[in-house]
């Protein structure tokens, strides 16, 4: 008798636990999506604006009923702006939190590192900010591809002709091997990117320079990071195309106290254009100290990133006035929902937003769309659904294509903004801009 009772009892427990794991019970669970952002650390301001935008978008999506009746739950993991922390955060989201896909990805160095984790597992990762070209180039993620890239770098410093020929041969060999290795990665290459790559950040700015400023010489300053060096290298190519002579191209370590020796050197060369690829605090210090040195080139231009955040104006004060920057988005663009997003953000958080926020907001909508279309929430099906994406967002149309060795890359225009009377205004391309650019600028008068 006693045995029977025990058996019955156990039977009940078993039945109960089975019922709990049934499909119905799981359908009520929210869908977990992992988001990698720098919530603390030196890139915290960028992480903050993206986090707020992600949360706003997901709240809207869930209010409208979520995805196929299930709510979306964001698990935001802090990368602290460091590649190693980013890697372990990605590992944790995938294996411990069991998220269905990854989103976010700020700063090129961190995103390139975390992308490696995702590729190894074939795990879908929708990048919305990390911009170095290599992130969506499959060959760059193979061991031989990495070696070839390293050799290419050493090639630049080499002067001996015999050695150059030797290194070139080695590079070719590595590249051939990388092409073979890539075949293994390719079927499950899982990185998709919403934002344009850094090599195209200045494409809008190029038009402005060619038609309005017409500079003859340029000094390029950049941070010694993946984003900084790649951004500077691609602008050097732009300058060549436009016939602008590069007088100086120099990197600096983030966190320097005094940029004056570097800026004094720039000043002594007297370039028409000063182009800077910097994150926010260095951007502010660079502008402040250029003011202290009374630099007066034709134009100060920034490569997006640090130059469009509201905090740039707060930290640089009047030194930010009339500074021009490349940008990937502006609320005045004729995109459906762009202005509404800007107004909603302002109403909800009582502060301005800019292109980083728009990227995150749109990424959330793309994620919701993908999860809706995916046959199941297995990595393979989400990858397929991502590849088939074709939708309009506040950031612009999203459709993943392949070009310039990049695959799964969204192709978008870039624009130019200028800080005019403390407000970030879009000034280029002309036919889309409501505000006329201020040029020429007398920087000395501007900052009195």
């Amino acid at each position, binding site marked *: 008798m006693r045995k029977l009772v025990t058996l019955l009892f156990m039977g009940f427990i078993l039945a109960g636990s089975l019922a709990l794991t049934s499909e119905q019970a799981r359908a009520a669970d929210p869908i977990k999506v992992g988001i990698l952002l720098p919530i603390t650390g030196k890139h915290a301001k960028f992480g903050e604006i993206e986090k707020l935008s992600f949360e706003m978008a997901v709240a809207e999506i869930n209010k409208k009923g979520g995805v196929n009746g299930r709510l979306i739950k964001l698990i935001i993991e802090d990368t602290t702006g460091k590649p190693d922390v980013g890697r372990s955060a990605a590992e944790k989201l995938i294996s411990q939190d069991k998220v269905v896909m990854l989103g976010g990805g700020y700063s090129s160095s961190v995103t390139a590192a975390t992308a490696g984790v995702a590729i190894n597992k074939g795990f879908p990762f929708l990048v919305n900010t990390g911009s170095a070209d290599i992130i969506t180039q499959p060959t760059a993620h193979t061991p031989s591809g990495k070696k070839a890239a390293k050799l290419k770098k050493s090639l630049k410093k080499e002067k001996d002709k015999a050695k150059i020929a030797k290194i070139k041969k080695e590079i070719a060999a590595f590249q051939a091997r990388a092409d073979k290795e890539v075949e293994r990665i390719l079927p499950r290459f899982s990185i998709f990117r919403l934002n344009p790559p850094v090599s195209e950040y200045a494409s809008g700015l190029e038009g402005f320079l060619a038609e309005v400023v017409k500079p003859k010489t340029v000094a390029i300053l950049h941070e010694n990071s993946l984003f900084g060096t790649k951004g500077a290298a691609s602008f050097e190519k732009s300058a060549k195309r436009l016939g602008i002579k590069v007088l100086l191209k120099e*990197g*600096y370590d983030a*966190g320097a106290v005094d940029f004056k*020796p570097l800026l*004094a050197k720039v000043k002594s060369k007297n370039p028409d254009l000063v182009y800077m690829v910097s994150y926010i605090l260095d951007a502010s210090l660079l502008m402040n100290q250029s003011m*202290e040195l009374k630099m007066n080139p034709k134009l100060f231009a920034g490569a997006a990133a640090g130059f469009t955040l509201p905090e740039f104006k*707060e930290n640089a004060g009047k030194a930010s006035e009339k500074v021009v920057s490349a940008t990937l988005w502006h609320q005045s663009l004729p995109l459906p929902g762009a202005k509404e997003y800007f107004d909603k953000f302002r109403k909800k958080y009582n502060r301005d937003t800019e292109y980083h926020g728009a990227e995150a907001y749109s990424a959330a909508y793309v994620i919701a769309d993908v999860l809706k279309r995916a046959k199941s929430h297995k990595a393979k099906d989400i990858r397929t659904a991502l590849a088939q994406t074709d939708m309009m967002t506040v950031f612009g149309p999203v459709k993943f294509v392949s070009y310039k060795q990049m695959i799964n890359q969204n192709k978008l225009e870039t624009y130019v903004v200028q800080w005019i009377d403390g407000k970030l205004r879009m000034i280029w391309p002309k036919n889309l801009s409501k505000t006329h650019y201020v040029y020429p600028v007398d920087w000395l008068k501007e900052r009195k």
Partner: protein
Amino acid sequence: MDLFLQTLVSGFLKGGLYALIGMGMTLIMGVMGIINLAHGQIMMVGMYITYSLFALYGVDPYLSLFVSMPAIFVLGVTIQKYLLNPLLRAETILPENQVLMTVGVGMVLTEVMRFIFTSDYKSARTSYSNATFFLGEISFSVPLVIDLFIAIMMTVALFLFLVKTDTGKSIRATAQDKEAASLMGINAERITYITFGLGSALVAAAGTLLMPIFYLFPDIGGPFTRKAFVICVLGGLGSTVGAIFGGITLGLAEAFGATYVAMEFEDMIGLVMFILVLLFLPGGFKRITKI
């Protein structure tokens, strides 16, 4: 020529602050014979005090020197009294335990500040943060010039204190020979508290002076500890005059490196000098100046 002079001025002004940072460390090194690897972190705490006063009550960063220095003095005394000195009494395998302790103290300070203020970058922008004046074509940053002036005053005050006062003489005596000083009736343990407090207060002052022109986050301590260490080795361990030389040399080297080599190598230049001095002039400038 303007470029040369501008570099010279920038390097010298920055060197003044470096000297102040180095002096605190070298003082501690002289008396206790240990390297304080929490030096930059203590400076970071001083900067947070300045920042809080500025953000909450609008206190001018220069005025907050009167708060940050005494507060960090107390912090320094506490660290020495309750964390470092007890290690001397314990029978340990490693005589370097005090140094290891300072590493731990530095980490704890960083994490505590991260807990309170998060890792966000903070700055105290004042109306004069970007003020400049010009001599010919050379630009002088007003806050940095004021900083240099205050740093010089503090150095003079420190020297008067060490040379003229009873406590100062006791510190020097303890630095020269701890056991002999004890035999002469100096309370060596009390001297260690005072020295650590004083060294900490000096670096807190440097942090406070840096606040109007720079920014702040919890991890800022590490790089400054490294710089302080380089300065002390350049100047000669334990030598106050050496620290002044070391600080200004490092400031100038970084500035000239940035102008005539490349700014990318700013940190490398300091460390290369560090190695060269260790190899060819062990003992630093102290060997030349003899002070």
